[in-house]
């Protein structure tokens, strides 16, 4: 059974974020045909402006990429998540945490409905 009480260890937090960051960088490089390797892109690299210098068309692709890669839909107007690689990772991890919290509640409702 999923333990929702104990906090993840520091190493678990690091490993989880590293995994998400790697997936995001790989997805952006592939989807946007960026001339970078995963190692070239720091976690705090800005997506627009003087960072990766992406544009509004790329932003649409990122939204699609996050859904394809993580099943997470960036809400319209959530510009705050589209600032850096790390803010995209924050969004993905928030979505995962929200899903984990709602899963037991959904299971409980299903059980009650069945009873």
């Amino acid at each position, binding site marked *: 059974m999923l333990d929702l009480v104990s906090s993840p260890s520091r190493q678990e937090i*690091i490993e989880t*974020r590293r995994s998400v960051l790697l997936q995001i960088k790989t997805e952006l490089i592939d989807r946007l045909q960026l001339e970078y390797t995963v190692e070239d892109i720091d*976690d*705090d690299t*800005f997506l627009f*402006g003087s960072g990766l210098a992406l544009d509004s068309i790329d932003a649409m692709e990122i939204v699609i990429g996050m859904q394809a890669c993580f099943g997470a839909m960036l809400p319209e107007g959530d510009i705050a998540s589209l*600032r850096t690689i*790390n803010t995209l990772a924050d969004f993905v991890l928030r979505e995962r945490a929200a899903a984990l919290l709602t899963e037991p509640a959904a299971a409980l409702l299903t059980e009650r409905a069945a009873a």
Partner: protein
Amino acid sequence: MNSRISPIVSHLSLATDCGSRDGCVTAAAYADTEAEYKCVRSRVGIGDLNHYAKIHVAGDTALDLLNYVILTDVARLPINQLQATVLLNDDGSPCAEAFVANYGDHFLVLGEGIAAATLFARLAGLADSRFVGAIVTDQTEALGLLGLDGPFSWELLKAFMGVSVIGTRYLEILADQALDGVPFTLYRAGKTGEYGYMLLTSADKSAELWDKLCELGKRFEMLPLGYRVIDLCKLENRFMSQHHEGSQVGNVLELNTRVLVSRDKGDYAGRAQIEGSIDVGLQRRVIGLTFAENMKAGANALQVSDAVSCDGVQIGKLASLGYSHTLQRWIALALVDTAYSYVGLDYAVAEHRARTVSAPFIFNRSMQIRPQEDSYFN
């Protein structure tokens, strides 16, 4: 060494606090920092950027010379655009932050974090030895530079430049502009995270341009901004600051600048150290930290160089520090061992708990403003 005084400081007696920045006496603050901060984050502020070095580089080898001293590749810079970059020391550490402007027949380097005389001597020395054919001229005292920053800075400019200013893209140059007969070149650039513009004019016209902009700015309750509040905005938005974290790193890549590195432009200052660290991996890098909300501004409990510790073991040190009026808490940049430089972790600084966070620290009001629809006066 204070070899010069900003023409705006000479013109005004407004500044409550002057200081030396890059060998130039300029305003650290005009009002209290919080008032200036609220102005730049919600309206529009005007800044005196005359401490910037302004070095003109022309000639057959101008591009090669610049590529030797910066991290990025000027060959990729279109005419009438700026490139945000970092000037390098020979050991691969940063010596200044810079915008390079490409005018087609010459470049203009706008450097911050280095005295103009020092930057000129370096570039002129390289032109004399390694890049013969480059002509380097120090324009620092001949040119004046002002900044307009804030969610409605575009609207102030629109009042006399028309709607064309709205369509100006980030890092674009608009030459041949004028305000009541005072000529200037507009750069769509800034370091606050808000809509930012830099206005380049002749030094002898900069005070006149300042006064005219201040007159227009009255409708926007505009305030002059000292460098202290600009530094805070840079920190919140994670613009590199040579005066703070930039001066504390041994390798420019520790500032998360790897995406700027051009590996196909030929030799450049510090190349062996920079590309060596790419191959081997960095030992440390900069990451953002936030502190608990109940640590009040002015508590002075934290200092740059304070150790960052994990389970009693030092893993880094503070490199820059400020109080974010938006977040209502202290924020910092720390140089931390790369194994620990991930977001979402709690560490100790002095006796305080700090959490690593993503860049940037704040969400700017300008991100929510659409110039086609919004107005300060709505």
